[in-house]
């Protein structure tokens, strides 16, 4: 009988040969990712840091710190005038060596470093300070910086001396150092290149080499960096990996040494292997998860319902289950190190289902409340589901309305939410007045809750216009803002959540700023 075609022997031989060829070919790409050795205590120069992040760059949004590509690029290429330590708001020198505030709080004189040059080779001067602050609030950028109200209150900058900048203000600015920490110094001669993504010229430890949209960002060591001997790394290569599972897989397989955008569960899982992975909790660079309320929606105009929601939410359960214990419950936006933090006030709406039920009973029949959340991150859905269960337990029925990120932002900015919503806010890690004049959910003049109050507006403005944002007078004003927030309750805080990063133990010296910017000036590889 004639054979049917391909013999079993030839089939197996073919498959075997194919498999062997595949395995032989595969070894080198994985080997090229690097060794599995841990970094030692002595810094070692050289090497390229490989990073995975979930977002691509949006050049015109550079001032917003709105995604991981932007924060990585700013941290590598640019520098600010001053910089806060992660655990306080006491400014430290950066491109400004020292400063003096006028007694009336209407001006600030900054002495600038004279040994700093841009990546283009041009010397950094006071004119760059003026240009950068103006650009930060410039409407020609699609997304202006969140601190634009503070930037606009800087009425002029005296640049007579190239190494001294004198900032004049429309009124005292208690949060001026938040602005100086946030605004990064850009090169006026190449600013148009930023908008098209062709070039990014700063004074930072790394120079921008290339951006391939949807694929990668490449940076090289700045040989003219003003800090001697830094950076240690020869370069940084960032891969854009939109899928969070793929990011975790790249870390596990050693393809990258550092990743952002890893889910809380993957972070928990990876950090169990302490020999291979380090977890970095970005203390001092937190975000707050909250439930927002549209105070003009049916029933939500009654503050008793908002109070019932605040009492009904089991914050500790959300922190534990959704964020795997990373963070802590809160009733007010302020993190524990903030000058506005008040432990007693923070207990005002501690989890109390009995009180919530009592308030619901007083109100009577309630409609079903739409509850919108963003599907971009799984933590929003998980939080919304727990809140939904908590509210159902006290007699408040909500209907979940998941929407994608673009729709969510549209509804947020347009104040279009029909009931309640959940998302993160930030800026409470800075001077407290920054939150109430810059973070949109808290903005006294226009917010997603449709909340208006003369008392809240005047408390916010008074806090902002304090000459010294850390003074006793300022702290007293922050207390008034806190009282207004607790009384009006247009936003129900759930908890303070620090970002977390995961890196391989090959990498040491990883750091960050209060705005989650990547700082690898002192980082080195094994």
């Amino acid at each position, binding site marked *: 009988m*004639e*054979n*049917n*075609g*391909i013999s079993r022997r030839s*089939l197996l031989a*073919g498959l075997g040969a194919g498999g062997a060829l*595949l395995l032989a*070919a*595969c070894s*080198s*790409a*994985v080997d*090229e*990712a690097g060794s599995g050795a841990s970094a030692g205590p002595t810094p070692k120069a050289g090497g390229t840091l490989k990073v*995975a992040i979930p977002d*691509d*760059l*949006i*050049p*015109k*949004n550079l001032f*917003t710190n*709105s995604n991981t590509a932007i924060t990585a690029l700013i941290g590598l290429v640019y520098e600010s005038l001053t910089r806060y330590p992660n655990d306080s708001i006491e400014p430290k020198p950066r491109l400004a060596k020292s400063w003096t505030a006028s007694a009336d709080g209407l001006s600030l004189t900054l002495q600038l470093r004279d040994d700093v040059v841009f990546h283009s080779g041009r010397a950094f001067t006071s004119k760059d300070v003026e240009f950068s602050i103006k650009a930060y609030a410039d409407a020609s950028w*699609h*997304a*202006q910086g*969140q601190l634009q109200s503070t930037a606009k209150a800087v009425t002029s900058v005296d640049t007579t001396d190239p190494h001294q900048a004198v900032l004049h203000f429309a009124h005292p600015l208690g949060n001026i150092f938040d602005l100086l920490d946030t605004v990064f110094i850009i090169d006026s001669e190449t600013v148009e290149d930023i*908008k*098209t*993504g062709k070039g990014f010229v700063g004074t930072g430890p790394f120079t921008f080499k290339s951006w*391939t*949209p*949807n*694929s*990668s960002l490449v940076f090289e060591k700045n040989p003219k960096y003003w800090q001697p001997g830094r950076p240690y790394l020869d370069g940084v*290569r960032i*891969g*854009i*990996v*939109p*899928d969070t*599972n*793929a990011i975790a*897989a790249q870390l*596990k*397989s*050693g*393809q990258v040494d550092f990743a952002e955008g890893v889910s809380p569960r993957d972070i928990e899982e990876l950090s169990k292997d302490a020999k291979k992975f380090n977890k970095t909790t970005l203390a001092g660079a937190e975000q707050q998860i909250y439930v927002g309320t549209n105070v003009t929606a049916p029933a939500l105009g009654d503050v008793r319902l908002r109070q019932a929601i605040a009492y009904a939410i089991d914050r500790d359960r959300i922190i534990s289950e959704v964020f795997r214990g990373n963070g802590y419950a809160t009733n007010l936006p302020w993190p524990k190190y903030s000058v506005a933090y008040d432990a007693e006030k923070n207990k005002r709406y501690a989890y109390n289902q009995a009180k919530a039920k009592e308030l619901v009973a007083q109100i009577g029949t309630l409609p079903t409340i739409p509850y919108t959340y963003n599907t971009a991150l799984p933590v929003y859905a998980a939080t919304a589901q727990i809140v939904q269960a908590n509210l159902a337990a006290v007699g408040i029925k909500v209907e979940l309305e998941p*929407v*994608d990120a*673009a729709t969510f*932002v*549209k509804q*947020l*900015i*347009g104040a279009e939410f029909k009931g309640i919503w959940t998302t993160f806010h930030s800026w409470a890690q800075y001077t407290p007045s920054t939150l109430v004049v810059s*973070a*949109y959910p808290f903005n006294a003049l*226009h917010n997603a809750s449709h909340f208006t109050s003369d008392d809240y507006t005047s408390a916010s403005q008074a806090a902002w216009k304090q000459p010294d944002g850390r003074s006793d007078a300022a702290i007293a004003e922050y207390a008034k803002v806190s009282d207004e927030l607790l009384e009006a309750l247009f936003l129900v805080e759930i908890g303070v959540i620090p970002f977390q990063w995961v890196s391989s133990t090959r990498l040491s010296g990883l750091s960050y700023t209060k705005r989650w910017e990547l700082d690898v000036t002192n980082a080195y590889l094994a």
Partner: protein
Amino acid sequence: MLRYLVRRVPSAVLVLFLASVLIFAIIRLIPGDPATSLAGSDASPEAVAAIRHDLGLDQSVPSQYLSWIGNVLTLDFGQSYSVGGEITSLVADGFGNTVILTLSALLLAILIAAVVGPIWATTRNHWLESAITVVNTISVALPTFVSGVLLVLLLTVIFPVLPSAGIPPDGMFARLDITAQYLVLPALCLALPVSAVLSRFLAETLRTELRQPYVLTATALGVPRRRLLLRYAMRNALPTTVTVIGLQAGSLLGGAVLVEAIFAWPGIGQLIEQAIGRRDYPVVQVLLLLSVFIFVVIQLLTDVVHALLDPRVRIGGAQ
């Protein structure tokens, strides 16, 4: 043949026109707004309005369509809202990567089908047939986002022999051996369901052919079974299989959207996904229209190949 080709062109142009209208309308039906996506969560309504004006989104929808399609006809695809650069260069980069991925996947699928199809059609080994059936069913049934994750887990984490995602750091053509390794997982993930469909189709077609009277006659005349299979039955099975390959090539383009996201492969699939997320209308419109164009061209080519392989098609068409 030229006349046959010319007859097919008007319907292709009509499909492209209708597709352009549908694409333009559908993207605008999705909730969300490019201006608010760009402005960020702390923007004022005035800033959003300024962006809408800047992008021309404050004009009427028909006016926006006419402006867009007019530019497309002159090969001016405009600029991306979010990236800021020319869409032409964005698409060129992404398209090149997608072509590499989908062609690799298609070749892999054809190769698998060319091996598995004849074996499946002719084997009398019950266990081998069952094994092929099981693997084939799983390949079709598993969504690519599941098979992709499983492949990554198996071949990059448990047995770290392949890179888990991305493209070669030094570019696609610097070292082909490295490029091949980066290609294996996404191409395999994309190829699996297509190879399963092709294998089954080829096997069934071959079985039908092998039952034809001419096969019986040839067997009686002593023509070797292998020659019968590969020279006669396979040749007769090819025209219809080529049609199915053409259809599957279209599905590969669709499947690439997910696979590129899973494996961080910077092709047009990933570009479309990101552009939809940001409501980057010009990029979405151009990419979807390009996908339709490619599909139409593939169908046209498939018909031409079919007509070349089977003269009855072009003669029937002419009559």
